[in-house]
Structure formats: structure tokens, C-alpha cells
């Protein structure tokens, strides 16, 4: 894999810097703030990976150490402080953040300290552009929204939706994804009846809901997070609930709604979620780590990010952030295919080049440090408010 220059700090000069021998994995994931609901599965993914790595003998002869940190949200502004804490705790890799917006506030700080920032959930397209277009010390296992946007629009076309309304959260995530869905749809011949954005802090969604309900669309794509729980009843009230107007969810709101909508409110809703089919096995293992876990969004990606970091450290025979960064792309592309950490270690010890494909699907990190291909699952809700996979689509970004 190519090393590449970094914008600010040129870590490769110090690349010789030897790690301290222990691979320390910081976790910068949401515990508080408006994204706190995304935190548990992600923490569980990382912790499960660390547990399995250590059971398989650790990295470079030592157990991997975990340091948790709180990402908060972009309103609370604590991410930089927490990142400092993680760096000071000698993290070599920081798994995080959940939100692309928060990542922007810490990425420079983390990279300049020679630490890898490895996200399992950033989907913003901006990390493949501009100064982040080189795989310096930033990586992610989650595919950029381009792919999901394409899958979503294909799904809509497959269902013969010709006049689609988009109801999206107004932030980095919602805007990009909405944009992607819209261009793909319009390019492929379908119409977009309306694209309506709501502010995440909005106290009322009536205007947007009315707009969607009155747009004459034959389907609505709801791009958002938790607010979906408030949007659905309002859509229902406006006569545009899922039973009247076919509704589609995305990764941000594809969650278990048995508690909220257990009476068939979201029956038939379809949704997309990056990641290959997570085997029941994986879910069961996550449950062991966190018995209270309900959702699984991005747990697999975070798991893979952790495993890849560990494998890269072994491949580099060095646990420092810069050393790991040089090997990350390498261990995910080209070489002997491995599916688990244990397999990977064996192959590396045998001196082979490996290609890790993890629980989140075929992982191929590209030149920008982001996946070049990924699979995306299509799910559908039953009348109890739970969702199940329909199929998985793999594609290139």
C-alpha cells in the first residue's frame, strides 16, 4: 500500500517511532448527546473484537488494551477533550467517531499526534475529498453514502416508484444521502416529488410532514436518526403513514421499533443498511459483551476496524499509530483471504500477504482509506416493528 503524504504533520518522518509494545485501542464513540443511541452497538463491536483478539493471543505478544471515551455530539463540543484523554492514554488507534461531523472536529488533532483515527460509521463523502483523500492516518470501514444512495434508488426503481418524496435530516449525513438518492433517481428516470429537510433540533415537523403528505408522491424515503420515531406517527396522522404511502428507511433509522411501533405501524417498510449479513452468530456474541444490546448498526464495521488495526500492527511488527497506518490498506487487499483475526495472525506469521474480509462484508480499503466496495443489506419490517433482511447487494463505490 502506498504511504502518502499528510497535510499537516508528516508522520512518516517519525515512522520509525517504535510503539510501546502494547496496542492500545481508544474508543471515541457516543455515550451522551443526541447520538448516544448509536453508542452501544459500536462499543460492543469494538469490545467483542478486543476480547477475541486477546483470546487468540493478543497483538505482538501482549493483550490489547481498551480505553473508552465519549464523543458527545457536535453541540456539546467535548470530543476534542476526550480525544486528548485517549491520546494521553497512549492510544495507538482510536476507533471512532460515529458522526462524521464530530470526526471533523478531532481528525486533525488525532492525526497530528500520530494516532490512527479509524471509524466504523462515518459515511460522509467528504472524507474522500480534499485533504483527506490520502490514506494518512484516517480510515473507515463504513462505505461512503454514495453506495447506499445508489442502492436506495435502485430499490425504489425496483419497486417501480416513479415519484418519490425524500424527508431528510438537515445535517452532513442527511444532506449527502438525500443528494445521492435524488441524483441517482433522477438520473435513472424517476421523479423526485419533493425533498424536504428538517432540522435535527426541530420542535415540530408539521410543515415538512404536510409537505410530504401533500406532494402526491408514491413513496417516501425517510433519512434520519432517532427522530423517525416522531416522524412516523405524524406521517400516519397526516394520512401518509407506511400503510398508505410506501416508506423507506436508511441506516440511520433502521432500528428495532418493537417498543414504539409494535402494532403494525411500520409494517412493510423497507430499508437499507451497509454491511453484509451479520450472522446470528455474531449477534449472539455481541449480546455476550453487552447483554442489553438491541440494535446492531455499525457494530460489525467497528469490530472489523479493530481487527484490521490489530492485524496491521502485527504485519508492521510495531504497534505505533504510524506503523499501523502503513499496513491498514495492505491487510485488507490482495493476498490470502482471511475471515477472522486468528486466521489472519496465522497467515501473517507464515509470512503471507493477507486480505481480511470481516463480518461487515468484503473489505477493500482504497486509496482514500475508505472502502471501495461493500455490501448493503435490504431489510423489511414485520408488523411487530422488527426488521429482517430481504437480500444483500454488493457494489463498488
Amino acid at each position: 500500500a502506498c504511504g502518502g503524504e499528510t497535510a499537516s504533520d508528516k508522520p512518516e518522518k517519525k515512522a520509525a517511532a517504535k510503539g510501546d509494545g502494547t496496542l492500545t485501542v481508544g474508543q471515541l464513540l457516543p455515550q451522551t448527546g443526541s447520538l448516544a443511541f448509536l453508542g452501544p452497538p459500536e462499543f460492543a463491536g469494538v469490545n467483542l473484537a478486543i476480547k477475541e483478539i486477546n483470546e487468540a493471543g493478543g497483538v505482538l505478544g501482549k493483550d490489547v488494551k481498551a480505553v473508552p471515551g465519549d464523543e458527545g455530539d457536535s453541540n456539546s463540543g467535548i470530543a476534542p477533550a476526550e480525544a486528548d484523554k485517549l491520546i494521553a492514554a497512549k492510544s495507538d488507534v482510536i476507533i471512532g467517531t460515529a458522526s462524521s461531523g464530530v470526526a471533523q472536529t478531532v481528525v486533525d488533532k488525532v492525526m497530528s499526534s500520530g494516532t490512527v483515527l479509524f471509524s466504523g460509521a462515518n459515511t460522509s463523502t467528504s472524507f474522500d475529498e480534499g485533504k483527506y483523500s490520502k490514506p494518512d492516518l484516517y480510515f473507515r470501514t463504513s462505505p461512503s453514502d454514495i453506495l447506499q444512495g445508489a442502492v436506495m434508488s435502485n430499490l425504489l426503481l425496483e419497486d417501480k416508484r416513479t415519484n418519490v418524496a425524500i424527508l431528510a435530516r438537515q445535517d452532513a449525513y442527511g444532506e449527502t444521502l438525500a443528494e445521492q438518492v435524488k441524483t441517482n433517481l433522477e438520473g435513472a428516470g424517476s421523479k423526485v416529488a419533493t425533498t424536504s429537510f428538517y432540522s435535527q433540533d426541530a420542535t415540530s415537523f408539521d410543515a415538512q410532514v404536510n409537505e410530504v403528505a401533500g406532494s402526491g408522491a408514491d413513496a417516501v424515503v425517510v433519512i434520519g436518526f432517532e427522530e423517525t420515531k416522531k416522524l412516523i406517527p405524524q406521517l400516519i396522522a397526516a394520512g401518509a403513514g407506511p400503510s398508505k404511502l410506501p416508506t423507506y428507511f436508511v441506516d440511520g433509522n433502521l432500528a428495532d421499533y418493537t417498543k414504539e411501533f409494535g402494532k403494525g405501524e411500520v409494517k412493510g417498510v423497507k430499508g437499507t443498511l451497509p454491511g453484509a449479513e451479520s450472522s446470528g452468530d455474531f449477534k449472539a456474541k455481541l449480546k455476550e459483551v453487552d447483554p442489553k444490546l438491541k440494535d446492531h448498526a455499525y457494530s460489525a464495521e467497528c469490530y472489523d476496524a479493530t481487527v484490521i488495526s490489530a492485524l496491521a500492527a502485527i504485519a508492521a511488527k510495531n504497534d505505533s499509530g504510524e506503523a499501523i497506518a502503513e499496513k491498514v490498506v495492505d491487510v485488507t487487499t490482495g493476498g490470502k483471504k482471511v475471515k477472522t483475526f486468528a486466521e489472519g495472525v496465522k497467515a501473517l506469521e507464515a509470512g503471507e500477504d493477507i486480505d481480511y474480509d470481516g463480518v461487515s462484508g468484503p473489505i477493500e480499503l482504497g486509496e482514500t482509506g475508505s472502502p471501495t466496495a461493500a455490501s448493503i443489506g435490504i431489510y423489511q419490517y414485520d408488523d411487530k416493528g422488527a426488521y429482517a433482511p430481504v437480500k444483500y447487494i454488493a457494489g463498488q463505490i
Partner: protein
Amino acid sequence: MRKRLYRVLVALIGALMVLLVGTPGAAQATETPPPDATAIQVTLQDQANKDAEGNPKPVPGVTLQVTKDGKEAGEGVTDDKGVATIVVEELGEYVVTLDEKTLPSGTVLDENTKDEATVQVRFQGPNNRAIFPIGVTAGEHSSFGKDLMQNIRAGIVFALVLGLAGLGFTLVFGTTGLSNFAHGELITFGAVMAWTFDQIFKTGGLAAVSVILAGVVAVILGGLGGYVQDKVLWGPLRRRGTGLIAMMIVSIGLSFFLRYVFQYFFSSSTKAYSQYTQQVRESHWYYLGFALASREVVIILVSAVTILAVCVWLSKSRLGKAMRAVSDNPALAASSGLRVDSVITSAWVIGGALTALSGVLYALRASEINTFMGMRILLVVLAAVTLGGLGTVWGALIGSLVIGLVYELGPMFGVPESIKEVGPLLIMIVILLVRPQGILGRKERLG
């Protein structure tokens, strides 16, 4: 480069395997097993022309041309299902052109459908789709008048809930002069308490009236909360002679404290009541042309009656006058024989109860119970009471009506929808420029 492409293909095939194994929903696709090769699938259906079962009729025999970077890359003709699958060699951007001459007679492309579609081919198999809408009677876009009614309805419901919260704020402000930045959390408190008791009641014999009962309990607790707050925190602060600004900062501290205490115990996820989330709006003649869900009717009635009753009572009753007197000059009020502390305590109790009620109704309206809800609405509440004239009870009502309506109507008159909260804030600023003391506020005389 080569190596990577190879990996991708392998991966795609892997994924395809999954696809083939478990695809209950993809019935259409499996009928004619598609070739393994990457392909663009175009479907042509005439939506205007439906068969007996109401399914649109496929349009067969239409020729479709596929080009990449201007070069021919394939061609296909729709089969009797109206589907054409055109195999392409590599991933990338393709343009599909429909040959309009081959359309069966009587079938024409919709007015604003182009005969070209751009397809990003990213997926293995016939998963890269394009469509040419035919005969689509795009559902009518609702009329301006209808939208207006809808948004006025939304505005009124919102305004009334806002009015309750504003009244709670005004009561406390009007007696103590305190701008309570923890007021949002008192709204949250009402909703969270109602939810908690709803969870308790919903399984028992009271399930049928669970939410109503829980709401009543929440309101009582809200009043109690006001009482406790005043006794434990504000009362002692007053006796120490703490200034208003210092108290305001205390309230900011209190808001952090409460917000995170709520989150500590209730987590940050959004919750909903066990009942009434499925109601659909209906119009009746007695709703005056508005379409209303039953829960909205309840919200309107409960809040309007409460607000009016409280406002009238405050402007007529002795206690109401006493509150204003205390706000003007507590020392003089004491000298007139008023028990200042108990007047303030009653303001907190009534204010707390009203605010909790607003929280309960707000949660009912927006199906939202969440530890941040109060914080989010606080600014709007502040805007409403300020606009009406700080400390005036009727002002709180009028301010809320203006703010609520502008909030929901703004997008119809040019406020960008995604930032519709800008509308009421701007209106407030504009009105305050004309009337610096608020709509009902009064200027003090000078000298």
C-alpha cells in the same frame, strides 16, 4: 489495480450467492434467472393502462440503446413483461436511450420524461436499474388552500402547547423576575413522568386510560416539583439576597443538572406513549374545515381551557395581583402584609404544573418523549413570552399564538423549510423593534 478489480468481482459474486439463497422479496427477479453478468435492467410499464387486478400493463417491444462515454455499449428490447436486460462489460456510468419510435402506438412518454436515463452501474447482476415513466398520473400536489389549513392547524396546536409552557415561565418570571433557563427541563419533566407512569399503568387494569392517568399524575408531580424547587433552591437563594443574574446562571446550572439526570435514568432515546400514536386526521364539519386527529382535539381543548382559565383567574384574583405586586417590589409587598414567600411558592407550584401539562401535551402532539425535548423548545417558548411582553400573562398567550402560527406557516411564505425556526425568531425581532416592550408590555415612565 487489476488485482483490486479482481477482488471486487470475487466479492460481488460472494454477495450474489447470498442474494440467491435468501430472497423472498425479489420474486420478480427470480422468475427469469438473470445472467450472472452485470446488466442494466429497464422496466417499462404504462401506469395509465391497468389490467383487471390493477397492475399496470407492461410495454413490450421497445428498443433501448446503451452508451458509455458516447460509445455504443449494448442494446436491448423489452420483453412481454416490459423488461429489458442489457448486459454491460464493466462498471461505470452509462446512458440509456429509449427509441421513441418503437413505442407501441397510443403509448407516449410522459410530458417531462426524457428519453434518456443515466445509470451508475455499481452492482453485479441486473441490479442497475432505469425507468421511463409512462402514464404516471403523479398524485395531485395539494392545493395552496389545503396546505394553508393544514399548517394553520399545526400552528394552532403548537401555539397552544407553547402557550401553556409560556404561561408557566411567565408566572415565575412575573413574580420573581427570574429568567429560568431550566424551564425547558421542567417541560421534559412532565413528559418523562407521564411516560414513566404510562409504562406502569399500561399493563394493569388501567390500560384503557393509561396515558390520561399518567398525564394527570405528571401534572401533579410537576406542581410538586415546582414546590420542591422553590423550597430547596430558589427560596434559600432569595433569602441570601442573590441577584437575578446570579440566579439566572444558577438556572443554567440547574438545566444541565436536570437534563443529564433525566438522561442518566431514562437514557437519551426517544420514547412514545403506549396509546394514541396511530390516529389519523379526519375532517368533520364541526372542526371548521380542519382535519384533526382526536388527540389534537384533546390538546386544543385542554390547553385552551386551561390557558384561558388561568389567565382570567390571574388577572382577576387576589393572588394574581399579589404576584404582580411581589414582582414589582418584594420588600414593599411584605410591608403591605403579603407573605412574599408563599406567593412565590404558589407561582412555582402553578407554574410547575402548567409546564408539566405542556410537556405531557407536547409529547402527545409530537409523539416525542426525550430528554432533550425541553431544551429544544425553550428558545421558542422564550421567543413567545418575550414577544407577548415579558411577565404579562395574556402576552404569553398572544406571543405563543403568533410564534406558533409563524413557525408553521413560514415555509409557505418563503422561509426555507429546513430552517423554519428562523421564521418566528425573525418575526419576534421585527416586532420588538416596533414595540420594544413586547406586544402587551408597558413602558415605564421616566423621571
